């Protein structure tokens, strides 16, 4: 028997609300398959399951709020029968402390290892909708959620989903006109205009407040616990810019390279050489990352930010890295991030250059131990090795690092390595084998 639990979604997301199941009892689940969509303060997340099995039961219903670690699903392992699982569940329930098992397997009380925080029992935000096998679904709950009528994915942007909830509209019933039939904000507004009477009192502030609450918790913890130190380095970007302009001259948009890809690749390579910046501070010690997985800070238009991970960046050529970045940003906007992308980043990189600032000194996202920042690439006066003055495109790279895990001298070497990497764009394009 496999108990599938709501996985960690990063240090600032400790709970989520089940939006819909993408599997049903009897379905086979493959490793890495998306089994559910969970809404968090920041985004709707596609939750992946990394174990193989057959769905036995789904004790959590859509509309239920859960803490990270809550058992969401019970899977049968290969060779296991339904009655085997029932026996195992009965044995667990009998062994559980009195009163703890009343919610059955949906209760977090059956965790074999105590989580950092006691999991809250699931709270139903909407009354359980009775199954209606024929005819239309029952009335929407307070969040506009009803039990998903099939496992097909409703494509909807986070902003549209939020607005629909605020307006008490069932997103499943709104006709989408976006990419691949996705329901957009405009579709929700149109649906509201068509049925103005069906509109309960909106609560637009709550979502923004919840976003601020989770960011406040994570950033306050960071500043309370992490002794930050900060370094900055001005990096000539002339060679990189010239190489990029040449590479992009004949490329159609679909094959074009982003300047950010060079910055990310240079950072990832340098982190390979200075691994004490790539990983986590846990239980009083540094734990290196299993690879270089860069969390890329993406600011959300409706407020706040999220930093999903680009995995194994050193192994990517610049075109693949650009495509991965474009895909990640697009899915962040469309509300289709995967759970692993929110928990696997080994360091965060923020690029505020698009907004026009020269440098950014970040707040480390715990339990990570460093944050790299890149500002705007812009022409600046530069003195070359012979004392000559010229104007060059320059980018300022900054490092905020955890002094428990590293020292300023090594941080300076890390930034110098990023600078050197950016002076050799053709070699930056080559993939580096993972170790």
């Amino acid at each position: 028997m496999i108990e599938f639990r709501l996985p960690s979604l990063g240090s600032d997301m400790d709970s989520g609300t089940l939006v819909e199941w993408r599997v049903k009892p009897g379905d086979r689940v493959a490793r890495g398959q998306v089994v559910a969509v969970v809404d968090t303060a920041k985004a709707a997340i596609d939750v992946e399951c990394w174990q193989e099995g057959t769905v036995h039961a789904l004790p959590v219903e859509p509309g239920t709020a859960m803490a990270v670690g809550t058992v969401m699903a019970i899977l049968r392992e290969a060779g296991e029968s339904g009655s085997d699982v029932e026996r195992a569940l009965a044995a667990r329930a009998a062994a559980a402390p009195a009163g703890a098992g009343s919610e059955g397997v949906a209760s977090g009380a059956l965790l074999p290892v105590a989580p950092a925080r006691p999991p809250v029992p699931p709270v139903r935000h909407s009354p359980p909708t009775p199954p209606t096998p024929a005819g239309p679904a029952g009335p929407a709950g307070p969040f506009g959620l009803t039990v998903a009528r099939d496992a097909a994915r409703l494509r909807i942007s986070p902003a549209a989903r939020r607005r629909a909830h605020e307006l008490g509209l069932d997103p499943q019933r709104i006709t989408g006109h976006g990419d691949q039939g996705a329901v957009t904000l405009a579709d929700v507004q149109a649906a509201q205009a068509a049925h103005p009477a069906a509109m309960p009192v909106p609560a637009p502030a709550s979502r923004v407040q919840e976003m601020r609450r989770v960011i406040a918790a994570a950033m306050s913890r960071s500043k309370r616990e992490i002794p930050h130190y900060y370094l900055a380095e001005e990096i000539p970007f002339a060679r990189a810019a010239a190489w990029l302009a040449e590479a992009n001259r004949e490329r159609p948009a679909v094959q074009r390279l982003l300047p950010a890809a060079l910055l990310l690749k240079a950072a990832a390579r340098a982190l390979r050489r200075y691994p004490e910046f790539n990983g986590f501070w846990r239980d009083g010690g540094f734990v290196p990352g299993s690879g270089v997985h860069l969390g890329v800070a993406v600011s959300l238009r409706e407020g706040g930010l999220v930093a999903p991970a680009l995995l194994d960046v050193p192994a990517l050529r610049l075109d693949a890295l650009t495509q991965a970045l474009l895909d990640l940003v697009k899915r962040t906007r469309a509300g289709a991030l995967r759970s692993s992308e929110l928990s696997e980043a080994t360091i965060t990189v923020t690029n505020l250059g698009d907004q026009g600032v020269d440098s950014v000194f970040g707040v480390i996202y715990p339990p990570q131990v460093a944050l790299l920042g890149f500002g705007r690439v812009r022409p600046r006066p530069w003195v070359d090795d012979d004392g000559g003055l010229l104007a060059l495109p320059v980018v300022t790279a900054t490092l905020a690092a955890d002094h428990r895990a590293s020292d300023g001298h090594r941080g300076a070497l890390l930034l110098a390595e990023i600078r050197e990497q950016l002076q050799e764009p053709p070699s930056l394009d080559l993939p580096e084998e993972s170790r």
Partner: protein
Amino acid sequence: MNRDDVRNALLQALADVAPEVDTAALDAARPLRRQVDLDSADWLNFLVAVHEALGVDIPDAEAAKLDTLDKLVDWCARVLGPA
């Protein structure tokens, strides 16, 4: 394809890459990226979406100059030729 068709295709491409944007509220004469806060990845996603929708590829060197919806409509309509 007339200018309105081109304009609608561009707005649809924008809605695809920035679903939270209210395209009806755009000022076509003001810089687009600043109005709707498109970062460089959003912008490239938009150019790719425009290519998919209209079959028109906006070169890298040209794209930076086409900073308003009006300019984008003009440029694409000219490349596509008369309806």
